[in-house]
């Protein structure tokens, strides 16, 4: 695996904007990298595929373990919501996607799971659409890519369609984020291509009529995809309505994903699969005997409130609003290091299938919302 450079396309902004990619830069600094890429081997793509598939199965076992043993306190999930999680798990409420983040040690050739963005993962649009068209632009059909995200999304919505309770699938996100809106519109686009009738509304426009949720036309919501974290929803004014909804609307991602999107799952996985080669040693409460580790809040987002400790010294840390629920302590992983920064690998599971990857590059060890998206090809 190595970085390769291309002759810069001076028209790249217009090219990606024509795809609908409006957040390629922030304050003039590109988030999308167009003129260099990761060149990976087919065997490395296979390795990521196998790791993602195996971890997904391990995660499902871990969810079952948490639910059976009612370990919700480790995740700080409100008591009133435990039943909803169990119902969504037992009823097999549909799930569409998730993204594992991996570290890769190039010396030991070792993939390690950093975390699982199981509830509200983004960068789906740039992975499935922009990255694919980028390859067509520069290489035509001469190269390949580990990226069947688009096909898998359409296929997964087709598989989900018979399990929807109503005739219309609603989609919702916050008002102020073009990135979130683009990701939701992309998911909705794929659902339409799968033959599903859809409607979009903002999260604050969701209505409650005293017995069930309704849309802007006051029509019942029976199935809804939300790009809005469960841990926020259950602590907001309408949180209790989710549990009291007489229509028992199907929320996608389902509420059992609260278990997987919480970093407590990293410690649970280490308990269930100690010394598994894809896992990093992780504990609740304290770092045990580790001298190099990362302290992560259970519910942190976009790299907030993270501390990186190497040989018992803090070498990096970030601030933010998280950490009230507690922390986990995860062994410090070795990241991909190049002249342009540190990179991690995002690996998508859509439906039940590992189907695509992306690279995110940062100037520091902690990945955040300014980390650059780097495309890849298999060659």
């Amino acid at each position, binding site marked *: 695996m190595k970085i390769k450079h291309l002759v810069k396309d001076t028209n790249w902004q217009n090219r990606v904007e024509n795809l609908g990619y409006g957040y390629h830069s922030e304050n003039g600094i590109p988030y999308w990298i167009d003129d260099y890429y990761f060149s990976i081997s087919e065997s490395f793509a296979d390795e990521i595929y196998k790791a993602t598939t195996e971890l997904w199965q391990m995660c499902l076992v871990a969810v079952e373990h948490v639910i059976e043993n009612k370990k919700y306190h480790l995740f700080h999930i409100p008591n009133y919501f435990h039943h909803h999680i169990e119902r969504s798990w037992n009823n097999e409420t549909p799930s569409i996607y998730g993204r594992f983040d991996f570290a890769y040690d190039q010396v030991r050739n070792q993939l390690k799971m950093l975390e699982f963005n199981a509830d509200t*993962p983004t960068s789906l649009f740039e992975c*499935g659409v922009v990255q*694919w068209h980028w390859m067509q632009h520069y290489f035509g059909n001469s190269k390949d890519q580990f990226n069947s995200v688009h096909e898998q999304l359409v296929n997964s919505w087709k598989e989900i369609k018979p399990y929807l309770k109503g005739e219309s699938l609603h989609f919702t996100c*916050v008002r102020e*984020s073009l990135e979130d809106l683009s990701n939701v519109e992309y998911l909705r686009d794929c659902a339409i291509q799968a033959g599903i009738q859809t409607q979009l509304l903002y999260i604050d426009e969701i209505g409650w009529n005293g017995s069930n949720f309704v849309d802007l036309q006051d029509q019942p919501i029976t199935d809804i995809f939300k790009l809005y974290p469960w841990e926020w929803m259950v602590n907001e004014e309408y949180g209790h309505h989710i549990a009291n909804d007489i229509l028992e609307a199907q929320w996608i991602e389902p509420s059992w994903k609260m278990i997987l999107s919480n970093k407590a799952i990293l410690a649970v996985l280490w308990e269930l699969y100690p010394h598994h080669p894809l896992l990093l040693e992780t504990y609740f409460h304290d770092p045990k005997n580790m001298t190099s580790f990362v302290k992560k809040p259970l519910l942190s987002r976009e790299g907030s409130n993270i501390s990186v400790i190497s040989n018992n010294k803090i070498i990096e840390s970030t601030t933010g609003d998280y950490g009230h629920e507690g922390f986990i302590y995860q062994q410090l992983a070795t990241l991909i290091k190049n002249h342009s920064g540190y990179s991690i690998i995002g690996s998508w599971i859509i439906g039940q299938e590992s189907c695509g990857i992306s690279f995110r590059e940062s100037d520091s060890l902690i990945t955040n919302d300014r980390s650059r998206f780097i495309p890849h090809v298999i060659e």
Partner: protein
Amino acid sequence: MKKRSSKAVTLLLITSVLASCNKPKAENEEIAQKVFMRADSTAPYTEVTQNYSEQRNGGSGMGSALLWYMAFRHMGGGLGYASGGLNQKSVVGNNPAKALAYNKAVSRGGFGKTSATTSSNTKAGS
């Protein structure tokens, strides 16, 4: 070599409109006009110039895509249209039936507040 990439990636929705939301404003593209809207012919207008301007310029990230997409909804029952983006007086006018329907038992706004109070720049994805 096993082909791993999608064979084709085509989109149906409004992606090109979404992209236009983030384009920087040209220097001579200042908006001189004021924009007013109302949702009922018996109602006074509400000035929405600021909203319109922000959407044209990329502003807070929202775009014109959604302005046309859902700004006005049909209320049914011969009551005409309504928009949550307008002051209520510009929606219901002097039609008491419409005012009643607009304010009926459905409540909204019970989700979404956390995104406005975190440091994650209002984005909810991760």
